[in-house]
């Protein structure tokens, strides 16, 4: 094992093309949206698109199956930010949305456990580009494609998690972490279908014989990295 100072290690996690957006104008008058707007006393354009609630209305949207899944972002963020790696300041989490926005998650963010609170935080973020205002824990930059994000932000080899990749298990990720000071992992933040623009990667890794959610796909990755980098 090659010894190296921990402070130099940066593990970047990119949730790519994630299904996080506000309700699009075409759905502002949909019954599910109007009802939610009334109940939450928020304008329709200030609500998150949510497939669990807007399923019927979303049928009219292009690419409907890939959109409206803020729950994916929530679970993955909880998993990464609560990990011992994050607690030791070794991780960086970025969300890239299907609308080509980049969200930087401050490493010390302790994500709200309650899903409704997390969704409200995301709604505020998508409206005002930072939350909380002034000392933001989440900041949003518009007009950043995934390729652009990876070109600018990736540190070390880029590992893309995808079904058709090379089979890798916990120990393989530990090996990668021992061989490279920095690593970048990209996982899809959408529930169905393929990448709109598949990112370039040094390694395409598959962690299961069946499709997994983004959070579950990261389970062997985080465990392997923790194995290699535990103090």
């Amino acid at each position, binding site marked *: 094992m090659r010894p190296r100072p921990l402070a130099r290690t940066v593990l970047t996690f990119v949730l790519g093309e994630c299904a996080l957006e506000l309700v699009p104008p075409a759905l502002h008058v949909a019954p599910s949206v109007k009802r939610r707007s009334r*109940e939450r006393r928020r304008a329709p354009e200030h609500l998150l698109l*949510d497939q*669990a*609630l807007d399923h019927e209305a979303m049928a009219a949207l292009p690419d409907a199956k890939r959109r409206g899944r803020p*729950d994916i972002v929530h*679970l993955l963020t*909880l*998993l990464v930010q*609560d*990990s*011992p790696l994050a*607690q030791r300041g070794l991780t960086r989490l970025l969300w890239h949305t299907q609308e080509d926005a980049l969200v930087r998650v401050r490493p010390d963010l302790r994500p709200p*456990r*309650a*899903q*409704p*609170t997390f969704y409200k935080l995301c709604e505020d973020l998508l409206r005002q580009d930072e939350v909380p205002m002034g000392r933001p824990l989440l900041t949003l930059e518009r007009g950043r494609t995934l390729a652009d994000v990876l070109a600018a932000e990736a540190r070390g*080899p880029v*590992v893309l998690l995808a079904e058709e990749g*090379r*089979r*890798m*298990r*916990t*120990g*393989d990720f*530990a*090996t*990668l972490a021992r*061989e*490279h000071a920095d690593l970048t992992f990209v996982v899809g933040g959408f529930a169905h279908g393929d990448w709109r623009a598949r990112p370039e990667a*040094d*390694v395409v*890794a598959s*962690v*299961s*014989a*069946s499709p*997994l*959610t983004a*959070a*579950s796909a990261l*389970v*062997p990755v*985080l*465990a*392997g990295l*923790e*194995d290699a980098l*535990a103090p």
Partner: protein
Amino acid sequence: MVPLGALVLTLVLAEAELELVPESIKGHPQVQSAARNRDRRAARTLLDASLHHEAMRQLPESDRRGRPDLVHFSLLLALDSALNKADKLRVVVHTRNDERIAIHPDTRLMRHYPRFVGLMETLLREGATPRHNPLLVFEPGWTLQRVLEHHATGPIVCFTEKGSPIEPGTWMEAKVAQSPDLTVVLGCFPHGDFHHAPETFANEVVGLGGDALSVWTVEMEVLAHYERAVKVFPRPAMESSAQPT
């Protein structure tokens, strides 16, 4: 029951902070208001610290109760896992009030938290859901000891903050070499200790060292290392260990 030697990890989410609003606070204005917003009777709603924090101050152990969100995420992570998809995982929830929720491995849990809460409220009231061919079954009168007697496969290991520190990869390899079946007990509460000393119900009490960790962080380590140790996802013979190109 799963036959011995079937390579199964049994995950017990113990002392889960999942309960209906206790009688003593059902009349509290905050509880009444939250119930009214959902068009439900207060006594039929789940206790939820994110909604009932003021009212909960009157309850003993108020700082750890009312956390259905911990159960929700822990179950999603377990049921979505590669291990569960390979039919190598059984999950059971034991609640703070000594109730048991048995979960069929094919359950597809709703991801929307308010709907999960609605599902749990129905389950706690009716005892099973869906009514025909239930995937979730709720029963009172199940102490953790009884849950373990009924569900445990192989040795019982409890993970706690105060357990003997282990390096999970090598520990799991050794454990699975002794017995491929394993039962892991995780405390499904935000902080504090088990109500009964883990040594009284577990063969081994271990921890990951360092700071207090979320239940899903420990669950993630357990799932990943068991999956690796029992080779749930074998690499094809032609493929070597992956290296970056």
